[in-house]
């Protein structure tokens, strides 16, 4: 019950700790009472709109209004669709069109969207607060997140209140003990689901959430927060920790109690060194597709003991409480322990499906008998193995989908837009290791002449910055494989030689 476990818990925290800090945003602290007041006034603002739709767009600025919008929307039994102010307007408009949004909440008075679409959230200040608790329907949507899709169109993952409630319950069951003295890091964009864990878990415990302004260089600002504010609970993408690596000898964070790694595979060498910087923290590796609500498996890294790994990447461990994970072969047969296959997950955290995307839903979900009962499973596209202790090891993606800076992207979407800029000729995007050791995107176009700037400019109008290639090449002709498809592997080898 989302209403009982999340909303009522939050309201209870507000009345218990009104003067405690709920947020620290750009060096300013805001108390629970102050935050609550904004939530309640925004509810009135939303009620006054007399919306018939149960979902609303939300421009995710890094400010208190935006976080208050999320709670206001939820307390009205509605869901939000995040729109990133730094993403191209075209992409946001495409999401608005696909999700059939009639209204968009925005705290920015210079909104990029039309007046008739926008609800200015800072207009709520003069309104009376709405404080009553209404019974939120568990099958209603809490949010829809749009992720990269290879057809050139993003696809919307629908997460219900029941999905989110099940996630929070299972997450806390891992063994986290938080209270009103905890200080928690929230360094993820609100368009990425890990952000929901980062702000929601602290706020139902009376802890304080520390955010990262969009215009800051993230890794150095995050270190500033960890060091200046003695953060106790931190969730990190390994690629961000990798950026701190040159400075590990200066980092000594004795107050950090929990360090969660997520969003991408965690290199074991890096985590061994990171663990030295956080001597008192328990370190966990969390795995989960957006479709199964934030995380659905977990592995605890224990210092100075045997750590399980696959190809140098930390194991992803055991399924969350209430989650079933199975490893299947190409014929949907369960493979033996010790053999690789594709992981499928089931349970209350798994989405009811992609928003109005029948074709994808047929591909991505299957019915499978498990322990004598038929369950609906989500096909993760991840190559995994179950070892003899039933711990899951992760071997990477099966398809053309990759992760950059924690964002899951389909190279096909970049290729789709690249092809359009060069009049339909072939384009192949691939991943390479950049100068900093992080994964970056390279794009190769099948054309004899190349205007790199023009291509970058047109891609930037369509794609968020993390999807923009850092290197662009051209070849007169692409190598083909025996089935006359572009030979990606050979192409990549050719490019590396250039």
């Amino acid at each position, binding site marked *: 019950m989302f209403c009982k476990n999340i909303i009522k818990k939050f309201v209870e925290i507000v009345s218990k700790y009104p003067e405690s800090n709920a947020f620290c945003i750009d060096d300013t602290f805001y108390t629970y009472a102050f935050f609550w007041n904004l939530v309640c006034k925004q509810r009135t603002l939303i009620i006054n709109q007399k919306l018939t739709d149960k979902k609303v767009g939300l421009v995710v600025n890094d400010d208190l209004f935006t976080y208050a919008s999320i709670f206001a929307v939820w307390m009205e039994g509605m869901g939000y669709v995040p729109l990133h102010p730094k993403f191209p307007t075209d992409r946001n408009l495409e999401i608005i069109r696909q999700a059939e949004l009639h209204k968009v909440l925005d705290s920015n008075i210079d909104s990029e969207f039309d007046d008739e679409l926008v609800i200015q959230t800072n207009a709520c200040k003069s309104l009376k607060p709405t404080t009553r608790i209404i019974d939120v329907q568990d099958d209603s949507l809490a949010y829809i997140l749009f992720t990269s899709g290879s057809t050139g169109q993003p696809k919307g993952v629908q997460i219900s209140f029941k999905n989110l409630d099940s996630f929070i319950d299972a997450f806390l069951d891992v063994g986290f003990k938080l209270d009103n003295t905890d200080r928690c890091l929230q360094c993820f964009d609100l368009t990425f689901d890990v952000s929901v864990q980062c702000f929601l878990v602290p706020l139902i415990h009376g802890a304080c959430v520390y955010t990262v302004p969009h*215009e800051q260089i993230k*890794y150095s600002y995050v270190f500033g927060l960890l060091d200046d504010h003695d953060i106790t609970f931190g969730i990190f993408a390994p690629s961000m920790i990798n950026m701190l690596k040159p400075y590990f000898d200066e980092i000594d964070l004795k107050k950090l109690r929990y360090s969660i790694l997520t969003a991408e595979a965690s290199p074991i060498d890096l985590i061994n060194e990171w663990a030295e910087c956080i001597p008192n923290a328990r370190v966990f590796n969390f795995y989960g597709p957006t479709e199964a609500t934030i995380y659905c498996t977990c592995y605890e890294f224990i210092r100075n003991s045997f750590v399980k790994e696959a190809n140098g990447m930390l194991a992803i461990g055991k399924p969350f409480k209430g989650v079933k994970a199975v490893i299947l072969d190409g014929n949907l047969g369960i493979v033996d322990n010790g053999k690789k296959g594709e992981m499928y997950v089931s349970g209350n955290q798994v989405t009811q499906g992609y928003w109005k995307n029948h074709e994808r839903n047929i591909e991505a979900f299957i019915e499978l008998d498990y322990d004598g009962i038929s369950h609906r499973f989500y096909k993760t596209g991840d190559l995994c193995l179950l070892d003899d202790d039933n711990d899951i090891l992760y071997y990477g993606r099966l398809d053309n989908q990759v992760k950059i800076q924690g964002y899951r992207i389909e190279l096909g979407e970049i290729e789709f837009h690249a092809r359009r800029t060069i009049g339909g000729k072939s384009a192949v995007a691939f991943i390479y290791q950049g100068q900093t050791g992080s994964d970056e995107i390279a794009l190769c176009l099948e054309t004899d002449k190349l205007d790199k700037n023009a291509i970058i400019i047109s891609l930037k109008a369509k794609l968020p910055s993390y999807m923009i290639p850092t290197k662009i090449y051209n070849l007169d002709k692409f190598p083909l494989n025996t089935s006359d498809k572009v030979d990606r592997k050979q192409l990549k080898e050719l490019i590396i030689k250039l």
Partner: protein
Amino acid sequence: MQRNNIVEKVKEILISVLEHEGFELTDDLVAADVSGWDSLTHMIIISSIEEEFKIKFKLKDLNKMRNIGALIDIISSKIS
């Protein structure tokens, strides 16, 4: 080294890493205002500056560095 010499050298580094000159190097310029200056290029810019001026930044220097003026001040204090 004179402050404007430092500014000039920093400018050259930025142009070479970011591959464009679409910015004016004023004291209150911030990374977010410069196209292409993100976490990844920031790391390369910082290591190029360290190499050029033969200095080494502390992480604490970096996270207090809010704009170009602060960057120039830190470089200046490290080389004097």
